[in-house]
């Protein structure tokens, strides 16, 4: 709170006023003080010369009386000094230093000083003292000693101080008023400038301009500020325009793209769907041909028929894959918390029942929980586990490990198998549809499984990558971001 009162926080107006007033106060004080000092000096000199004149006159008058030792006459002469109120004491000495006559004004009868010791003269303390020889034709016939109080001087100087400082204060008030009016010349443009800068910073309103006063530095500052704001305004306008253009372009592109996407999906769906009917006809009539007319065909004919039926089955699988792929691309997501470990156990059980009786060792880390669309996640992990199953089918012993690694911003599920693996050269092709690293003779497949997995993971804003070397098994990592997990 006290910080508010520190000078850094004072407005420019106050600082300017303070500067002006402190300088004028200093000046007025110096002038008043020197006036008082000079007046004191002058008044002292005047007083001194007056007293000297008085003393001269009285000394001359008393010369004769001193010579004739006429005390009465001396008393008469010096009692004329009673008229001057400030005279404290007067002593008249004869030539041998004896007091001939004395006048004590203020009741306290002070003794005349002994002239054997020269008394102090001049302004001493509250008194002015003077000692004057009384001469006649150049001969000293006695001494005249006078003490005057300085109350008149004191009163005069006090009155002078009062008057001087009153005038000083009056001048100061006038100066303060003038300074208050004149400081606006400087502080007002600066205040308007800072006010405008603050408003621009707060409201981002670049149309604000400050009024320009005169041609001085402040005027130049104001016009430079206006120019600067003008430039910023134009640039801002350009930026906004280009941003709007960009947004419009993006929106156009997005709508075009989504339209194309939708058309593509509709196309692939209808293609897969419509392809099924002729395929089913081929398959159905193939079966009928085999059952009804199988006997009439020779060995080669039966082999051909068998091959036609196998091809239709493969094509059915392809169409199924395409449908799944198009579904995971199109389907609306239904996000919830899933027990991935339990889901994987189920898939493994199904696989164990439906396939070869190879000694199989599957370990799944319990309690892996992810958030996502249950059906999609299931499709993805079904594909991954099926792959693991498939590419380990030529082993003596099948081993599959599923582990999860949780990081603050993500969870990564790793599926490790001991299958045939793949060459890391082709890792880029792994997740592209219809790309296969093995021939159908080696391992059957549609080339759509990992593409589907990739699509599912990406729809969950995750990523998938794989590590492998030939004949050394493969490991697939699926990483889901934590933001999706909440």
């Amino acid at each position, binding site marked *: 709170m006290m910080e508010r009162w520190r000078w850094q926080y004072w407005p420019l107006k106050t600082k300017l006023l303070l500067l002006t007033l402190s300088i004028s106060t200093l000046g007025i004080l110096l002038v008043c003080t020197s006036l008082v000092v000079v007046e004191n000096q002058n008044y002292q000199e005047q007083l001194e010369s007056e007293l000297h004149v008085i003393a001269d006159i009285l000394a001359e008058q008393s010369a*004769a*009386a001193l010579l004739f030792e006429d005390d009465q006459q001396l008393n008469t002469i010096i009692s004329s000094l009673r008229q001057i109120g400030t005279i404290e004491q007067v002593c008249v000495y004869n030539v041998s230093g*004896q007091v001939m006559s004395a006048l004590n004004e203020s009741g306290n009868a002070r003794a005349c000083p002994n002239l054997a010791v020269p008394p102090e003269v001049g302004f001493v303390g509250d008194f002015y003292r003077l000692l004057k020889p009384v001469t006649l034709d150049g001969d000293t016939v006695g001494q005249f000693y006078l003490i005057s109080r300085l109350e008149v001087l004191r009163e005069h100087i006090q009155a002078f101080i009062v008057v001087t400082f009153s005038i000083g204060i009056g001048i100061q008030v006038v100066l303060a008023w003038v300074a208050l009016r004149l400081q606006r010349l400087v502080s007002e443009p600066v205040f308007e400038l800072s006010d405008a800068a603050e408003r621009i910073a707060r409201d981002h309103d670049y149309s604000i301009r400050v009024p320009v006063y005169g041609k001085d530095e402040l005027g130049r500052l104001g016009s430079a500020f206006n120019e600067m704001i003008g430039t910023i305004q134009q640039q801002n306008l350009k930026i906004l325009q280009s941003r709007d253009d960009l947004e419009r372009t993006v929106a156009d592109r997005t709508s075009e793209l989504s339209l194309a996407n939708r058309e593509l999906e509709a196309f692939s769906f209808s293609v897969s769907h419509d392809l099924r009917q002729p395929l089913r006809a081929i398959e159905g009539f193939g079966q009928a041909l085999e059952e009804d007319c199988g006997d009439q065909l020779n060995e080669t004919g039966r082999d051909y028929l068998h091959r036609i039926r196998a091809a239709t089955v493969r094509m059915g699988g392809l169409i199924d894959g395409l449908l799944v792929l198009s579904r995971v691309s199109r389907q609306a997501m239904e996000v919830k918390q899933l027990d991935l470990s339990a889901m994987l156990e189920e898939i493994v059980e199904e696989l164990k029942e439906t396939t070869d009786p190879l000694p199989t060792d599957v370990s799944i880390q319990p309690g892996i929980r992810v958030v996502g669309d249950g059906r999609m996640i299931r499709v993805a992990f079904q594909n991954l586990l099926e792959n693991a199953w498939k590419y380990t089918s030529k082993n003596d012993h099948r081993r599959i490990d599923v582990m999860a690694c949780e990081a603050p911003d993500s969870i990564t599920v790793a599926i490790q198998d001991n299958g045939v693996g793949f060459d890391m050269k082709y890792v880029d092709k792994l997740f592209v549809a219809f790309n296969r690293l093995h021939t159908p003779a080696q391992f059957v497949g549609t080339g759509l499984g990992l593409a589907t997995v990739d699509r599912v993971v990406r729809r969950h804003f995750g990523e998938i990558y794989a590590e492998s070397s030939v004949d050394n098994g493969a490991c697939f990592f699926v990483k889901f971001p934590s933001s999706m997990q909440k």
Partner: protein
Amino acid sequence: MKFLIALLLCALVGASNASVRSEYEVKAAFLYNFTRFITWTEPQADGSDLEICVLGQDPFGDLLEQLDGRVSQGRTLGLAYPASLSDSENCQILFVGSAKSRDLPAITDYATKHQMLTISEIPGFVEGGGVIGYVKEGNVIRFEINLKAAQSAGLHVNSRLLELAVRVIR
């Protein structure tokens, strides 16, 4: 040390002298002081001596000897003891002894003619045409002035002297 004691003794002697000055010491001092306040309208020549003459019996003893050679208003004082009035034509200041009280009119006439300042301690001296007369008021020595006589003798008396006089005959 000796010097200091000597100085102290001198001071003591001086002080005692000052405090108990005899009547004629005072009168002799006055005599000198009169010369400082009175001017002669026609001085014989600038810087000429002022001759103090004592006519008749001298009551001062040797006190007037101190005045011999002193300077008053630029004129050196001289001292003379004329035997008779006729011998005293060079005098400017004439002290008339008490014994001459019977010859006063002649003396004052002579003095007026010769621009002489007449001084005396004879009672009623100023009424008799003398210029300055000593009077005694108790223990204090004062003087009175016959200004008319002074003016007719061509003497100018300083007003400050007149102020100090007990009586001034105009």
